[in-house]
């Protein structure tokens, strides 16, 4: 199982720890094309000695961004594939007959088997939404025509804004700036973890998603682990024993909680 983990490397200093427990495949958020992650330049990525490297492009890209992305495709040497949010990235890669793997990673989308199959005709794999129940994920995994990627561990990205929400707040009140802060709704006390860079702001979930229940599902190419913002010891304890009981900082997201959308359903 551990060989199927695709791990976002938040801190290169921990690389050997991950390798020691058997992680061999790493995901590197590409500098200038990501929000909500520690980013890496291509030079930095080239210097990191791991065999299976994937790039992450998770921003919604404007025209200048897509032009810039197209210019560097030829430089993706030693890269196994690209995970991306923006459909323009797929179109750009397709237009140059990109030979690496393409994995669609649109947060909150790809919630049904037929839409995933549509994409599996075009890309190598699809990251399935993490706002689904276990039964929904089980159905998808059992019926898709190819291999999928499932979230396994990490804070979930809950919202992505092009606004610099922390900067705007600190500017409004003329306070010292921070790029990572926890916010808490005054009424419900639900918390989110804001993470900002020059391209916008991501809100992460309050709890770390622990999806070890998903490890038995079929047709999984990778299990996605996001080490962003996570205490290293806690992550290592999970990687060493994925079936250990959930920590207080963890939950199982929506696996056993169905969302509603018409109020009369409640």
């Amino acid at each position: 199982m551990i060989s199927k983990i695709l791990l976002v490397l938040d801190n290169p200093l921990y690389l050997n720890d991950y390798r020691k427990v058997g992680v061999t495949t790493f995901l590197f958020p590409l500098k200038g094309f990501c929000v909500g992650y520690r980013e890496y330049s291509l030079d930095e990525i080239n210097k990191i000695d791991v065999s299976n490297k994937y790039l992450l492009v998770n921003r919604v890209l404007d025209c200048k961004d897509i032009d810039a992305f197209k210019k560097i495709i030829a430089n993706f040497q030693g890269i196994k594939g690209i995970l991306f949010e923006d459909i323009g990235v797929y179109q750009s890669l397709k237009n140059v007959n990109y030979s690496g793997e393409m994995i669609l990673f649109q947060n909150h989308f790809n919630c049904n088997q037929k839409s995933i199959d549509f994409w599996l005709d075009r890309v190598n794999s699809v990251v399935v939404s993490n706002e689904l129940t276990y039964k929904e994920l089980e159905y998808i995994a059992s019926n898709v025509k190819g291999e999928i990627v499932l979230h396994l561990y990490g804070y979930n990205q809950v919202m992505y804004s092009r606004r610099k929400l922390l900067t705007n707040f600190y500017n409004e009140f003329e306070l010292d700036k921070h790029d990572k802060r926890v916010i808490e709704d005054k009424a419900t006390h639900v918390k989110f973890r804001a993470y900002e860079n020059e391209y916008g702001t991501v809100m992460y979930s309050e709890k770390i998603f622990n999806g070890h229940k998903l490890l038995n599902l079929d047709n999984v190419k990778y299990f996605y682990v996001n080490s962003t913002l996570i205490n290293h010891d806690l992550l290592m304890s999970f990687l060493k024993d994925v079936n250990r009981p959930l920590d207080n900082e963890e939950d199982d997201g929506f696996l056993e909680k169905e969302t509603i959308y018409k109020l009369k359903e409640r």
Partner: protein
Amino acid sequence: MERIELLAPSGNLERLKIALLYGADAVYIGGQDYSLRANAKNFSIDDIREAVSFAHNLHKRVYVTVNIVFHDSNLAGLKEYMLTLDEIGVDAFIVSDVIVMQLMKELSIKAELHVSTQASSLNYEAVNFYKDLGATRVVLAREAHKSDILRIKEETGLELECFVHGAMCTSISGRCVLSNYATLRDSNRGGCAQVCRFVFDIEDSNQVFSMTPKDLNMVSVLEEMIKVGVNSFKVEGRMRSVYYIATVIYTYRRLIDRVLNHNIDSKYTDYSLKILNRCANRDSVEQFFNKIPSNKEQYFLGRDEESNKDFLGIVLDYNKDNNMVTLEQRNYFKTGDVVEFFGPNLEPTSFIIPDELYDEKENLIDVARHPKMIVRFKCPITLRKDDMMRVELKF
């Protein structure tokens, strides 16, 4: 110059008719399933049939949102629904999930495919992808800068639709499930609880953290929007009132016509801005068209809210023989009040409520105080059904 369309939201048949009568070229509506306003009344199949008939008789168009992000359980009945909409003759489906795009092709749906803003299209390669799938129009992300719009138009040639007015999401549309986490309501299936409008504590500060954006208002850049290639000006607000719809559509209709006729000036633009801001009860500003918004485009402590009691009544009937108007009251007014009428064919016209004011039973009254009460009085201005009466707006 390509055709410029004013596209209005409609949450029910009454609002749809008002939107079209007050100047919209097209309306977008949601059925009772598969639409991102799951808790609005929305349109039954019979309503949609009536809506299409009403619009087509005016040579106008109806678009139906089928723009939720589908879970497998939501797919039941989708094909039949799409075929029914097509048989009714709706002019376009507004779609975000690729499964609906694929089904439109498989089912040989005649209606146009418009890609929803939920798809967050912000570059020409993404738009070309949808063009390859058969889209004739893309609703660009609200985050589009004018240079993006121009480039996308040049590279794709597709019809482009952009929001010009109404509420903004804090997030890039579709890229938000705050509601799922805070309330267990699925935002991408129409259950959004607007968590981005909540107020928050923030770590290491005593100030209140807010991420609420001010509303969108593109009045001052309409001409530029046309120049960079926007074909359809979209107004947000399927859950808004008839008065809001009438006022916003009426105002934008006149602004667009003046821009196209080259007789727009800053005085009229300023007047229009004041009307719109007052009607919305919230500040409205440009957002992403010229720059990335700053703290000035967000709300932090409090809002500058003005009265929302402007809407006084809607005309039900006007008897030209005796100049008697029959009006349904919407807010308090009394004899001697200075009001104004406006309507699809009526510029704002001042009027003083006369002393002889009657209720439904012909009793003489001096105050109309009850919502929806029927009031009658003489008025020399020639009025029509669905004209509206509001407090006189002098700026």
